[in-house]
């Protein structure tokens, strides 16, 4: 094992997959010479050259469309969109083109395409550089949506996404880029569509995504001191959702809290809550509770009031137990 930061785990994944497969190329704004706005693509140009590491104009729709066309011809593009908020300016290409190409044309094409993009607050980047919009994309059949929280998962899942023959929206988290964690020296993959029990426990299930995985683990440590054993599930993939892992846990704990950084309303938490309510309501001993951001844009200098945190998770877990 070795210790790496989340951002370098991404770089390693890109490096290894590009070395392994000639059809993989990287494309985006400032990804080649500058090495990426957050340095994820650092060193790739030097290693693989201009043919495979492409700086582009600020033209997100053209970039995604180009990647789609190339993917239909057997290439494996990895697109970087600088901030998740900017997916809005290539929404047609992602939702109407990329996601539908395989289905609409009767299976004539495979679309092995990855769009990497960072979400999240914590950097005081303001309302147009901080959003978590994963639920929009999880709502679109034809896309996979992956959202890793640790260096280990981000590397293994990025490699799996690049090898997947379907379009994957790969949601990184800016606030996690500096996070350190252990990864193996050797090649490994983390399967798409598999959640991970980050901490076992018997009292309450907390299903969390991205940065909220760490907040939930912190909450679990606090609660453990009070004798409450929380099971923390890191969803890792939003779509396809790993029902099985969630159901198994809820069967055991009978109490469910879902925690994500996106606004609570109409979010991934709503889907999970509805799914559990539909299929295993008899198992539940308390209402399903959601932790998420308030229904406002991400405020520049009021982030501390906005971002959900470990205390919010603690409160929700206690409320579920008190029911």
């Amino acid at each position, binding site marked *: 094992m070795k210790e790496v930061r989340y951002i370098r785990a991404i770089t390693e994944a890109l490096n290894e997959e590009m070395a392994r497969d000639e059809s993989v190329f990287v494309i985006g704004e400032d990804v080649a010479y500058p090495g990426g706005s957050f340095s994820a693509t650092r060193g790739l140009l030097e290693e693989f050259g201009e*043919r495979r590491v492409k700086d582009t104009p600020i*033209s997100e729709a053209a970039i995604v*469309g180009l990647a789609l*066309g190339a993917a239909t011809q057997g290439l494996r593009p990895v697109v970087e969109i600088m901030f998740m908020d900017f997916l809005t300016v290539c929404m047609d290409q992602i939702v109407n083109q990329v996601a539908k190409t395989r289905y*609409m044309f*009767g299976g*004539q094409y495979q679309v092995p395409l990855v769009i990497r993009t960072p979400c999240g607050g914590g950097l005081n980047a303001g309302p147009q550089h901080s959003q978590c919009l994963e639920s929009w994309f999880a709502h679109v059949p034809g896309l996979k949506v992956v959202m890793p929280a640790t260096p280990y998962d981000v590397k293994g899942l990025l490699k799996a996404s690049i090898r997947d023959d*379907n379009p994957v929206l790969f949601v990184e988290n800016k606030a996690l880029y500096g996070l350190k964690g252990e990864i193996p020296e050797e090649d490994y993959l983390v399967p798409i569509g598999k959640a991970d029990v980050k901490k076992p426990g018997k009292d309450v299930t907390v299903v969390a995504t991205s940065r909220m995985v760490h907040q939930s683990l912190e909450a679990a440590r606090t609660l453990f001191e009070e004798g409450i054993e929380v099971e923390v599930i890191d969803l890792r993939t939003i779509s396809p959702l790993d029902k099985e892992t969630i159901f198994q846990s809820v069967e055991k704990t009978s109490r469910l809290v879902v925690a994500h950084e996106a606004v609570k309303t109409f979010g991934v938490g709503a889907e999970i809550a509805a799914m559990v309510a539909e299929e295993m309501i008899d198992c539940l001993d308390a209402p399903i509770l959601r932790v998420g951001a308030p229904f406002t844009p991400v405020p520049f200098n009021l982030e501390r009031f906005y971002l959900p945190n470990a205390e919010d998770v603690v409160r929700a877990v206690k409320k579920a137990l008190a029911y």
Partner: protein
Amino acid sequence: MKKETLLQMHYMMLKIRRVEERILEIFAQGKIPGFIHVSIGQEAVPVGVCSALRPDDYLSNTHRGHGQALAKGADLKRFMAEIYGRKDGYCQGKAGSMHIACNDLGVIGSNGVVGGGIPISLGTAFASVYKGNDRVTVCFFGDGATNEGTFHESLNLAALWNLPVVFCCENNGWAEFTPQKVHTKLENLSIRAESYGMPGVTVDGNDVLIVKEEAEKLIARARKGEGPSLLECKTHRWFGHFAGDAQKYRSAQEIEEVKSFDPILKFQKLLLEKKHLNPKDIEETEAKIKSEIDEAVAFAEKSPIPGIEGLLENVYT
């Protein structure tokens, strides 16, 4: 130019016309679901352009794309089955008139989103460069689509990267119910090319030989690695925006007048003058096309309607 080439172009223009006329008829009988956009009056554009393409070249088509797919060589039976929404269609009945793609012919897909196909055409062109082959991409779109951001982003990037793509604007003077003078200040849309650093040409899109000649130059240029270009072909949409459009926004006089630009009659006249064709040949071609269409329609009508078993298929691999 070889006589066979000329006759093939004549055959193809006539075939597109008759196929679309038949589609309108069948649509009116209620046998075809969904939306239909015909390109009657515009046949010289796809036929002129595609006669300059190789079979392995790529073509990105539009919602008004029947002619584009057929001119690239689409099999009429599978094409018709797709229009009917049947299992034997190119896309197993999941695409219909507005979304036909034929992977084996490099027809990468008609698009229901105006301007949506333009960025995708960059990708097939990029793949040619990446793989080191000389396959060219032709990307069709209408005059209306040139006001979409995708058009501008794509032309800029294609020029910058010298991609082997010919952007072909089928300018029929209308974007749905809005005439060109209401959607742009420009008269010749090809001048937009210059601002992106590529050549732009406007030609008479009702003259198949002129279209072919210009397309040949631009395609050859792209194939040699000299980069993209914009070809604007001015033509006319004879019918409504979609099948069933009463065209209340258009004067009866204009609807009549545009027919005087018939690209097929114009070409026939030339072929008759040059003695490449005689009236009997035309009759024979018409008869051949009619029997092909009859056969394709029969094939489509016999082809199974997709069942529920395919509903969830191909969302993912």
